[in-house]
């Protein structure tokens, strides 16, 4: 693993715990989906945890985030409470979006977490605008914009990359290249499948990083963010990753082989970090036990919170269609 030597034990523990937390949270979500507590479309991040955890580790509180419908990892890593998140998946009034958004639309204004967007490529222009506002208002912020390899097919990718580069806006474009857009393999969707190379068409800096290595992602993200803020110019970070599970809860995975999945599972970001840090004596079994216990307790509490949650009264259906004021 890259440059890991500079990382201290506390840092490693934080990264590991965060990834494990996302993983376990989603395992619970699958159970709850099967029990029909959670409904609608739900997309799991299983296998890709290193990307959001690594990138968000590098963000400051004043930075902003735009994510996709596969954003449980980003939401938890950014600090959205598991209670509010779980209650949202339950469709409860106590959810972070009062049950209106669900799994694909997690928002947290205080954390500058601007969704959760279910339109492929739909978030990129928003990120450009958030960064434009930050720059014009003299804030020292950057916006991390997450999107999949499939979003690269969309016109909005092209327009947004150009606009951000042209106006030198502080956007860190993070492509979660998990090789598939639903069932569409990237080689079948992109005539030039090396995404980082596309940055040249916009005169933008870019890099590809091993997205199964959380430390590598954290290091690359930190470097890229420093560059973004220093030069006030966008950066494209392509994270090489893989989703271990189906695209959503409805997907027979006819488009890929078990062998392929098995090969990628060997690079599980959690296992990799655990074994490397274990071998190097940086993390001990007792650490893992403690982390697991904390996570179990947190999840149990979140489920209890969601279960105890209430339904938004139907009379409130039209509330927020029009806002009465702009929150300060």
């Amino acid at each position, binding site marked *: 693993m890259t440059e890991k030597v500079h990382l201290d034990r506390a840092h490693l523990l934080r990264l590991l715990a965060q990834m494990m937390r996302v993983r376990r949270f989603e395992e619970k979500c699958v159970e709850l989906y099967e029990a029909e507590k959670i*409904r*609608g*479309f739900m997309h799991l991040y299983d296998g890709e945890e290193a990307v959001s955890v690594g990138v968000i580790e590098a963000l400051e509180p004043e930075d902003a985030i735009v994510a996709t419908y596969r954003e449980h990892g980003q939401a938890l890593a950014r600090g959205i409470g598991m209670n509010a998140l779980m209650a949202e998946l339950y*469709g*409860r009034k106590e959810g972070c*979006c009062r*049950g*209106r*958004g*669900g*799994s*694909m*639309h997690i928002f947290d204004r205080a954390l500058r977490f601007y969704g959760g*967007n*279910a*339109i*492929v*490529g*739909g978030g990129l222009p928003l990120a450009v605008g958030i960064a434009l506002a930050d720059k014009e208002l003299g804030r020292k912020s950057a916006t991390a914009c997450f999107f999949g390899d*499939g*979003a690269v*097919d*969309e*016109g909005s990718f092209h327009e947004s990359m150009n606009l951000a580069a042209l106006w030198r806006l502080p956007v860190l474009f993070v492509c979660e290249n998990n090789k598939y*857009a*639903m*069932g*569409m*393999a990237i080689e*079948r*969707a*992109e005539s030039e499948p090396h995404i980082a190379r596309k940055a040249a068409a916009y005169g933008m800096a870019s890099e590809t990083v091993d997205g199964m290595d959380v430390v590598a992602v954290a290091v690359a993200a930190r470097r890229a963010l420093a560059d973004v803020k220093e030069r006030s110019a966008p950066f494209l970070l392509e994270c090489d990753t893989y989703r271990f599970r189906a695209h959503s809860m409805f*997907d*027979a995975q*006819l*488009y890929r082989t078990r062998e392929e999945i098995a090969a990628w599972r060997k690079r599980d970001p959690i296992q990799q970090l655990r074994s490397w840090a274990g071998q190097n004596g940086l993390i001990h079994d007792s650490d893992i036990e403690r982390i697991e216990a904390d996570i179990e307790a947190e999840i149990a509490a979140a489920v209890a919170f969601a279960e105890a949650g209430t*339904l*938004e009264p*139907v009379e409130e*259906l*039209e509330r927020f*269609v029009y806002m009465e004021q702009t929150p300060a």
Partner: protein
Amino acid sequence: MNAEARAAAAPQRVTYREACKQAIRSAILADERVFLMGEDIARYGGCYAVTKGLAAELGEHRIRDTPLSEAAYVGAGIGAAMSGMRPIVEIMTVNFALLALDQIINNAATIPHMSGGQIAIPLVIRMATGAGRQLAAQHSHSLEGWFAHIPGLKILAPATIEDARHMLQAALDDPNPVLIFEHVMLYNEEGLLDPTVTGVDIKSAKIRRSGRDVTLVAYGGGLGKTLAAAETLHAEGIEAEVIDLRVLRPLDEATVLGSAARTRRVVIVDEGWRSGSLSAEVAARIGEAAFFELDAPIRRACGREVPTPYAAHLEQASLPQSASIAAAARELIKPR
């Protein structure tokens, strides 16, 4: 009739999904210029499994996976139609069709007229539409009535298994761009397909249930609820006539007006947002042409004016339901 012929002529029990699939298969087998392209229709098998197995059967040139480039592949469908093919473009859902609206409105709908009748665009675009699956605001639009505003397009809303099975071929036989909206809540519906019916028209509305007391006008995903409402009303002694519009553009005004003139009372059901929904156009037309025949104001049972929420109870509250449809009919007949 021998046993084989009898079996062939016996009604087949199929899902709406299967009917859509049969329609695609037989259209492709019948004409080598026909092909289907869209997102995840081949290897994945279709977002709603409509095309599962078809690529293996028909080949990946006829069932063609596209990148996530709605504007480009819809535009490519238009170009291919101008140049001798008979493309069927699948947009996964109407929600993503917003990315291709420029191509649909500025090219497909204008070029035949703008070219002085030189260029036809024999293109079919299919897409899923509608709410009801807790997919939240960006994945639950009901915009088929809204598309029906655009001259140059024909808009179909198959609400029955038979229409799902046969409208596609009629659309392909039409020299104009035809958009077919398949409601997501219908794919799992089962019903009987009469094999002696080999085609349907794409011109007329159909009376799905006759009645003398009130006319209920519906289409697409609203039809089932409306028929259920009619059943409820029947138990109360109110006989509702139910019209399935089927073709949202151009509207078959005659069928609607004929029924309105008989029952003198009309409720229009529309899952779209009430303001500016197709229900408004239907109401306006009845008001224009049958004003003196009506005994009561026209009522509309529509979608509430809200981005569709995720939570089940809120989502359901945002849609017309058979109870609210029946209530609207009742009020027309026995005003409080």
